[in-house]
């Protein structure tokens, strides 16, 4: 495996802030390999992040980078992309960041279909604040704010984004590096809003509080609680029973792969057609 992804890092900003065993570094590496594969010049890439462990990604990347407010990365990114459509805009968010405080922006980004790539670093817990329950914490799992096990029904971010109308929806894990890099590459290439839900390891909080074990065991947990599908074939999956909170252990492994990849006109293209129509209308006057 090549180390050339390192050329996309800011050496002066290393080391990063993530704990030993954290999956975020693996995701960032996959993301950089995808950017390298696509041959995107650094000046043409903007990476926008929110707040949380994932938010720190932008500090270490040698692109045009913006570390925004909690939950709002997609809204900032919309402005960047619309003001400068030449930029390839990648949005890095956490699970609480994107689906609790930023949930409104996520569903509207899905329906609006701006050409953005959203990568959700989903560790199923709030890491930077010390291990609180997230909207993605599986039912029954412990956190500092659900010490007896969560009684909330969690979001399945893939279903949420499919339901909200996103044209490209995928899921992978920080255990599954090879497929992850391929999926991120395809998400960046997709001409519209593409979202990848990336389950990542948080051994420090999620792992410790749920007796998963060492960082190595946390990777095993990601492997064992997911069911890899062929990532290059569009697929569907059965609805989990949602009428009552279900304990995580009772659910079948979470499917990972590519769930939707449907080309459709993106917002920027449609907006340009409105500008043209507006100019035409102006001439007739």
């Amino acid at each position, binding site marked *: 495996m090549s180390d050339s992804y390192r050329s996309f890092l800011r050496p002066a900003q290393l080391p990063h802030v993530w704990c030993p065993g954290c999956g975020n570094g693996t995701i960032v590496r996959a993301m950089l390999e995808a950017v390298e594969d696509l041959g995107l010049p650094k000046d043409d890439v903007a990476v926008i992040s929110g707040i949380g462990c994932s938010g720190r990604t932008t*500090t270490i990347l040698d692109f045009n980078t913006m570390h925004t*407010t909690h939950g709002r990365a997609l809204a900032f990114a*919309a*402005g*960047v992309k619309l*003001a400068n459509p*030449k930029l390839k805009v990648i949005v890095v968010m956490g699970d609480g960041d994107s689906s609790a405080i930023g949930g409104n922006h996520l569903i509207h980004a899905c329906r609006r279909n701006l050409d953005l790539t959203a990568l959700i670093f989903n560790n199923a817990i709030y890491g930077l604040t010390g291990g609180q329950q997230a909207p993605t914490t599986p039912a029954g799992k412990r956190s500092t704010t659900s010490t007896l096990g969560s009684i909330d029904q969690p979001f399945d971010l893939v279903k949420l984004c499919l339901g909200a109308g996103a044209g490209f929806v995928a899921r992978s894990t920080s255990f599954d590096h090879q497929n992850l890099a391929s999926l991120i590459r395809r998400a960046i290439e997709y001409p519209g809003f593409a979202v990848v839900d990336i389950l990542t390891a948080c051994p420090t909080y999620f792992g410790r509080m749920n007796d998963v074990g060492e960082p190595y065991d946390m990777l095993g947990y990601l492997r064992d609680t997911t069911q890899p599908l062929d990532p290059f074939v569009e697929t569907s999956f059965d609805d989990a029973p949602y009428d009552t909170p279900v304990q995580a252990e009772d659910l079948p492994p979470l499917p990972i792969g590519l769930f939707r990849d449907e080309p459709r006109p993106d917002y920027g293209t449609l907006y340009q057609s409105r*500008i043209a129509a507006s100019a035409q209308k102006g001439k007739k006057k």
Partner: protein
Amino acid sequence: MNSQRLVQGNEACAHGALYAGCTFFGGYPITPSTEIMEILAHELPARGHVFIQMEDEIASISSVIGAAWGGAKAMTATSGPGFSLMQESIGYASITQTPCVIVNCQRWGPSTGQPTKAAQGDVMQAIWGTHGDHPVIVLTASNVREVFEMTVKSFNFAEQYRVPVVLLLDEVLAHMRENIHWPQPGEIHVVDRHRPDELHGFKPFAGASFLPFGAGARFHVTGMAHGPGGFAVTDDAAGRELRRMMDKIHDHVRELTTAQSHKLDDADVAIVSYGITSRPALAAVEQLRRQGVRAGLLDLKTLWPFPDHLIDDVADQVEQIFVPELNLGQLVREVGRAAGGCCEVYPINRVDGHLLTPDQIVQSVTTQTSRYPGGAVTA
């Protein structure tokens, strides 16, 4: 083109923005600001620029800040409830020194309040609304022609000082129509952001030079305390940067001050007003003069940084200053502080959703009474 036009305040604001070179509007509908958005939804695409209706006001201001870093001259317009939602990101714009304009057509509050009634209750929120000390410029206007001019000035200051500028209008000014001289191209000075002369070694947060994303100098923008290079700092460096950002506004208070005075030269009594309330205040001055009271008016267009120097001069000269406002006393506290005990400062307040009348102001001045429970404000 006929240079006279009968236009609404919100229409003047939208066209003032276009005159200033606005290329991006992100917004969310809210009374009484919505016409600004509706006009720009038509006019921006017709000019090849960007209009987007976002999912809420938080997304609106966030998209505006993103657009500024994408290279746009960007603005949003809202009213009280939306303005409250925007506060966190206004702080982000302050600390990242992002040029942008936020128009707040004030309505009666708090909360939903009276959406179609005018108020001036957001003055302190405009100055202090986001957490932490932060640089911001707050402007206002008292007639439709001024709305146009002050919108252009808002963009100019945003560009020149790399700071969010809040333009405080109100429901009456937003919706009233006046026959105004329509500024022709070149008539009002338009400022564009200063580009750095040299990309090599460019420090994105060191000064007035601004470079958008994709212009060849890759850098980091963050809401964390950061140094001139953009990366996080703590302790002394954080304090130093915050002071520098505050100083860039407060050291230039004279350049940032816009105000008009009327019959102040020989005045014993001054009225210090702003926004829509300057209209009845002007009429009150005339009425008081007819009654033999030597009254004068200081009509402030710049509310922040606060023009202490103007109040100093007035306070040295007059016996009393009256500050009429459509709130229970906000800017009067700044006036009282700036007057520094050199004269008495009295608030005149109205909060039922209607404008103060000239008669009410005259009566307050002649009886030196006020409905404000604290009475005179002294420093």
